Structures are given as C-alpha cells and as structure tokens.
C-alpha cells in the first residue's frame, strides 16, 4: 500500500482502536500518543514518487474518486506538517488535561479527537475536490460530538448550531463541486486553472460563490463565523487543536485551494469575485478584532482573535500564497499555545474570565510567560514568528491597491494589541493576593517547547 495512504489511514485505525479499548486506559493512552508519532514519522520519511500524481483510495466511477495526492504542493505540505506536529503536542496536553479535569467519557473524546485530526490530515493531502469534501464532512462529523462533549444545555445548543452551519456550508460546497464535475469531468487539483474554464460563464460566478461560501463557514468569515465563539464551550484541547488548528485551518486551506487551484488567480481577478472576498475578509478582520476587545471570557476572546487572523490568511491568500502560508503556520503555532495556556489557567485556578485573572503571572509563571510571548507574536512583535509573517504579509500586498485595504492590517495590529495586551498586563503587573500554584508539567511542557521553537524559527526565517 502506498505510503501516503498508509499515513492517512494510521490515524483512522488508531481512532478505531481507541474506540474499542473500553476501559483499558493505559493501552488507550499509549495508542493515542503513538498515533501522532507514527504519522509524523511517516511524514518526515516520505519519499515523493514524482511520476505518480494521485493515488486512489476508492473509485466511485465516472471520474469520481477518493484520492490522495502523491507530492503535495506548498500549502498542502505545510498544512500536513502543522497538523502532524501540533497533533503530537496536543496529544500530551490532552492526556494531562483529561487526567487533571477528570473528563468524563474520555474514550469517546480521545477516539473522536484522533479521528478529527486524521480527517484534517486527509484534507491536506486530498487530490481532488471530492476527496476534499469527503474528508471535510468527516471532520464535521468527528468534531460535532466533541463540541457538545460537556453535555449540558449550552453545549448541546452550540453543537447544534455548529452542525447547522457546517451542513449548510457543505451543501453549498456540494453545489460547486457538482457543477465543476459536470462540465469538466475532472476535479483533480493538479490540473490547475483548467477546472473552471470549462464551466459556462453564466454558471461560473455561481460556482465560485458556492465553493467560496461553503468553505468560509469553516474558515469563519463574517457572517458565517457565528459558530466559533459558541463552540468554545468545548473542553480546551478541542478548542486548542481543532478550533484553532484543524477545523478552521481546514476551512482556510479549502479557500486557498479553491482560489488558487480551482478558480485560478487570473479568473479570480477577472471576474471580480476577489472584491467580495477581500471585502468580507477585511470586514471580518476589523469586526472580529473589535468584538474581541469586549469579551471577558478568555476563550471567547481568543475565538474572535482566531476569526480575525483567519481572515488575514484569506486576505493575503488572494494575492500571494507564500504570505498566506507563512501566517497560516505562524498563527497555528501561536494560537495553539494561547488556547493551551487558557486551558491550564482554567484547570489550575478555575478562572475563565479575564477580569479575575489579576496576578496570574506570579501564580503560573511558565504558562503565562508562554502566553505573553505568543501574544506579542500575534500583535506582530519580534522575536516571535508573528513578526515575520506580518512583515511578509504587508510586503506582498500589491502596491496598486488603495491604501484602505492595506491600512486594515496596521489598524488591526493595533486592535490586536488592544485585546491581548490587557490580559498580559493584568496577569503580570496587577497585584493579587493569591499564592503561587504548582504547575503540572504535563501541560506546560508542550507549550514551552512550541514557544521556543516559534522564536527559533523567526531567527532562521
């Protein structure tokens, strides 16, 4: 069996094993940790066979197939690496979190978690639109019970909302896929720019709109972003890996692929669709940034910040893949640390609201320093990787554009500071009377490693 297929299927197999393991917790935990190791290993040792283009997992006849690509392009490779590496860290974090919080129904949780990340990996190596769609929906299904894991009324409502949004997006995407398949017969990503040319021009706009809208649900572009803040009721590992890295990044990945491989940049600009994309993502950036300033719940604030940064990536992706990909990587790293830190704060001190978080810095120094460093990165300050991505982002915006579009980034950088800085300052510089609490290593170690690597990456550029 081809190595790429093996890599994709490892995750699914692991998920199944975990699901069947019932009460043997040690065994289950071991599988949970080894799965990302294996996937990462396969990822690193993967040799590209440049002759073969796509490898079919299942053939549905008529040109439809579930296939993975043999040599992923830049965006796909990056997504693959990000997903697999962060999965490893998140695995350690999750196990610690479960143990510390005595999370109920942990077997179901872990199995679905693995399934979700495996689907994300499948998305990254899909070879055609249909495979992308299949893995996309698999991701939805796997994450839906995770969102509602706590099983109280609020969780159920958020899960319901999540499913509605994503199913709506799925329907739209299906429309786009069907139209493309009908007219071009071939949905393979390797044949870039060819797909949409064959669609008659009256349908082209509809197809583009359908595909873009469908994937913007997961990418949380206004006005389809409503599910993300609500989905924060999920336990933090879910928020950290899935809603900061896997699910939303899958959405952004889909948009990038759609713009660059399916629609093609020429058609994108010619047809004028780019104006809508730029407008909505620009609006999202500002809206979400401002909204973030008003939230008191830490995770909700981070959720809005995620929404804003995803729109950065989409915005940049309209012009240059390189800048988008850089911010993709940078944001994934930074956000996962921030969310993990929020989880640690909640686990150790039980605090969810920022107004209660005075003096956290002295209570949980390691965690909070990681949080601080990564917030600085999100604002765009060196030596964290966020600086590099922001710089490149600004550089790749075309000079001919009116400065309104470009000044969005400057303004939003300031607003990011407005919502991140108070947390940092409150944590470090406001005095509180509580004592220092011992931090558990399980959760902090992954964070610190990620933080450091982010800094190192900057220097290496």
């Amino acid at each position, binding site marked *: 069996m081809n190595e790429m297929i093996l890599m994709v299927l490892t995750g699914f197999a692991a998920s199944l094993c975990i699901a069947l393991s019932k009460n043997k917790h040690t065994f289950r935990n071991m599988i949970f940790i080894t799965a990302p190791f294996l996937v990462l290993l396969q990822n690193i040792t993967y040799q590209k066979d440049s002759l073969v283009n796509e490898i079919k997992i299942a053939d*549905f006849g*008529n040109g439809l197939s*579930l296939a993975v690509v043999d040599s992923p392009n830049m965006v796909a490779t990056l997504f693959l690496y990000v997903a697999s590496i962060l999965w490893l860290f998140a695995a350690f974090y999750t196990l610690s979190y479960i143990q510390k919080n005595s999370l109920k129904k942990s077997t179901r949780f872990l199995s679905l978690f693995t399934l979700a990340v495996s689907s994300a990996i499948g998305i990254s190596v899909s070879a055609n639109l249909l495979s992308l769609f299949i893995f996309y929906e698999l991701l939805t299904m796997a994450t839906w019970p995770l969102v509602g894991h706590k099983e109280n009324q609020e969780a159920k409502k958020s899960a*319901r909302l999540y499913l509605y949004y994503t199913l709506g997006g799925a329907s739209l995407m299906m*429309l786009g896929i069907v139209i493309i398949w009908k007219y071009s017969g071939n949905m393979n990503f390797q044949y870039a720019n060819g797909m949409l040319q064959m669609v008659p021009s009256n349908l082209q706009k509809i197809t583009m709109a359908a595909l873009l809208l469908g994937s913007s649900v997961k990418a949380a572009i206004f006005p389809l972003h409503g599910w993300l803040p609500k989905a924060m009721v999920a336990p933090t590992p879910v928020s950290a890996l899935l809603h900061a890295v896997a699910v939303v990044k899958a959405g952004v990945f889909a948009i990038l692929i759609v713009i660059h491989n399916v629609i093609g940049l020429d058609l994108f600009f010619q047809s004028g669709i780019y104006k809508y994309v730029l407008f909505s993502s620009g609006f999202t950036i500002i809206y979400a940034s401002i909204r973030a300033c008003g939230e008191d719940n830490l995770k909700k604030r981070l959720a809005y910040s995620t929404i804003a940064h995803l729109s950065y990536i989409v915005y940049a992706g309209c012009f240059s893949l390189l800048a988008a990909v850089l911010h993709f990587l940078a944001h994934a790293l930074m956000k996962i640390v921030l969310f993990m830190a929020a989880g640690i704060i909640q686990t150790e001190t039980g605090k969810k609201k920022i107004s209660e978080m005075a003096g956290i810095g002295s209570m949980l120094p390691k965690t909070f320093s990681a949080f601080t460093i990564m917030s600085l990165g999100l604002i765009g300050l060196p030596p964290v990787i966020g600086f590099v991505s922001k710089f490149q982002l600004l550089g790749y915006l075309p000079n001919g554009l009116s400065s309104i579009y470009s000044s969005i980034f400057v303004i939003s950088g300031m607003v990011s500071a407005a919502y991140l800085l108070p947390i940092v300052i409150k944590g470090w510089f406001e005095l509180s009377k509580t004592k220092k609490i011992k931090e558990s290593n399980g959760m902090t170690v992954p964070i610190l490693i990620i933080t450091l690597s982010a800094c190192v990456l900057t220097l290496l550029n």
Partner: protein
Amino acid sequence: MIFAIPLSFFVGAVFCILANKKITAKKIAITFALINFALCFQGNFVNNLLAKGSFGLGGWTPPYGIEFFAEPIGLTFVCLVSMIGFFGLMYAGAIPSKSKQNNNLFFALTLFLLGALQAISLSGDLFNIYVWLELSSICAFAIMGYRTKEGAFATFNYLLAAGVAGVIFLLGTGLVYGASGTLNLAQISTLPNPGQSISSGFALIITSLLIKMALTPFHFWLPDAYGNSPTKTLGVIPAIVTKAPAIILFKIALQLHQNQINWIAFEFFLPLMGAGAVIYGSLMAVKQAKLKKILAYSSIAQLGLVAIGIGILDVKGTLIQIIAHSVVKFSLFCSVGALEHFANIKTIDELKSTFQKSPILSWVFIICGFSLAGIPPFAGFFAKYYLVVSSLEKNNFFIVAVILLSSLLTAGYFLKILENIVFTKYTKKLKSLIPKTIYFPIVFNCSLVIIFGIFLPKLISALEGLA
C-alpha cells in the same frame, strides 16, 4: 426464467400456510427468502442485471399474453426486494408474537407481498401491473392489521387511499386500452399517434401511482400507517412498499415520456411536488415526538427526493436514492421497532437511555442519520450528488436548492435524535434486553449503508445509458 424469482416467493407462501409446529412458518419463510436471494444474486449478477428480455407467460405473446419484461431498473428493484425481504423476514421472526396464534398466515402474506412486489417490477403491461399492485396492497393491509388493535387503525387510512388509488388506476387503464387497443407498455410506446384519451389515461395512472407513493399532497395516509404499524411489519413494509409505485412510475416515464403523456406538465409538476414533499416532510418531522412518526415523515421527505429524480428523468440518482433509502429506512425502522418492543423507548425523550441499553443500535442511528443527511461517504450522498447534476442539466435551480437544503432540513429533525443518543449523562449501565437475533439483520443492513456508499455509484454507473 425470470419469473422463477417471484415464483419462489409464491411457492414459499403456500408452504407457509401448511407449516406446523416443528417446521415453523418462520423457518420456511426464511428458507424461501434465501432461495430467492440466491436466484437473484447468482453468478454474474451484474450481467444479469443488464439483461433485457421478455418472456410471455404460458407462451402467449403480447398483445394478448401477459408479458414479463426484464430490464435493468426492474431487475435492480427485484434484487433490492429480495435482499430487504430476507432481512425483514429475519427481523420479523425475531420478534416474538404477543398472542398465542401461529404466524403461518403472517409469514405467508409477507412472502406473497414480496413476491408481488417483485412481479410488479417485472411486468410489462398495465393490467399485470394493476393486478400485482392491488395484490401487494391487500397483503400489506392484512399484515398491518394482523390481529393487533393499533394495526387496525393504521390500516384503515391506508385501505382508503389504496382503494381510491386502485380505482383511479383502473379507470386510467380503461381509457388507455380503449384508445390504443393494447395494454402492453412497449407497444403503447411505439404508437404513432397518441390521442388525448391516452394522455389523460396515463395522467390518471400516474396520479394513482403518486397516491400509492405518498407524495405530497397525497401523503396523508403514510404517517398514520407507518406510525402505528405493528413491530413485526416494520422490516418489510416501510422500506419497500412505497418504492414499488415509484419504480413503476419511473419505468412508465422512461418508456413513454416522449409522446404519450403530456410530459411537460409532469416535468413541471413532479419535481415541484417532490420538493414540496421534501420540505413538508422535514418540517413536520421536526414537531413530532414519537419516533415512528418522525421516521414516517422522513420517508415522505426522502420519497420526495425520489419523485424529483423521476421528474427530471435521472436514472442514477433515483436508483441510488431508492436503494440507499430502502436500506437506511430498513435499519432505522427496525431499530425503532426493536427499541420499542424490548426497551420501551417510544419517544425522543426516552431515547436518552439508548446508549446504555444498546450501543449497537445507537451506532445504527448515527450512521443512518448521517446517510440521510447526505454526508459522504455514506450512500445518501451520491444520491443527492447525481440528482443535483441532473437538475443542473435541466437548469432547474429551485430544485437544486431544495436538494441541497434537504440535508439541512434532515439535520433539523434528526439532530434531536442524535443529540439524545450521543449526549447522554453517564449513568450505570443498564441491561440490554434486546435479543441478539434482532441485531443481525439490522447491523448487516447498516453496514450495507456504508458499503453501498463506496461501491454503489460504480455499480449504477455500469447501468448508465439505459434509459
């Protein structure tokens, strides 16, 4: 030799009546179902499906004789009936009967019903169709009302509707016969000069088929019938009985759509009615509390999709939808019946304890739910896919929107079920009272949902171009 297939069921029915305590009716029924199954799926089964051949009963050729006409769509349905029949019988056998009477008559009637359904799809002329249709309806009433009080109420509406439909069908047949002199579909389709009466005749025929199919606005009998039918029948009736009229309609449409019928009207109305069914069924399903009623309305919605497929003359989509829906609804109805009979779970709220009582059935719900919503890689997805493709070809964007919306609407009513199953508080594990024999048909069927999701499109594509 095509006729051997339904014949096996008929023979079995006869034997069932003669069954005694040792060789119970159940065993006979299942044996004959197996025989039927083997006959259908023998050897080079795909090639069999592609076979086209006609065969006159008793050697009498048309237009006087009764012709059995085998063609791919019909044969597909035959195989479907045999498969579902087999599983349905297993399921019915696993449900212990409440009173002490023997089940001979029950099984005999079921076998007869199945045979009749198969014979319908092999028929080539109108009268034949009528006969078998009415026979199947009678068997269905009998089974549904079989010595249970709730069944009796359920049957009454069905009886009315079927009766009316039958009369209309006869009327239409009469008109057609009078105008063309023959009842054979193939011959009718080659008539050079169709007149007004043939068109109106077929209009009546089609209407009656729609009533039997429970398409909006003729659906009023379905919720009560399915909602109140006894548990034993749940395996056989809901899944395929309403599919037979659909298949007939499809065949008629495909064969006659050029000339005879005022197809423009039907091209316009059928998809609209189908769309209406989708929306109405889903919306009404949201309000229901009883599980069986929800599934009944859901059937209305899914049948709406079938109607849309027929209306736009899409072979692949309709076939996949029929097969997928039969399989899915079979699993769902059987699970619901099992839960109601053994675990006393009748409404959505009571579903909360499902996961403890029977994890397997919970998984069945989850998988079937996702298939209904049209999520890949389950079977329902490809049905919707091809339907959308065909509606795009006809440039009918409203239908496209409805098809795409259907997954959202399905989620609307199914989500509550799924939520109650998945998100339940962890309590002490309750004993599961559901016997293992029930599981086998359900689980097997459910796995078919997944398997069909992967293999069916290819299969059906092989039948392409056979309109």
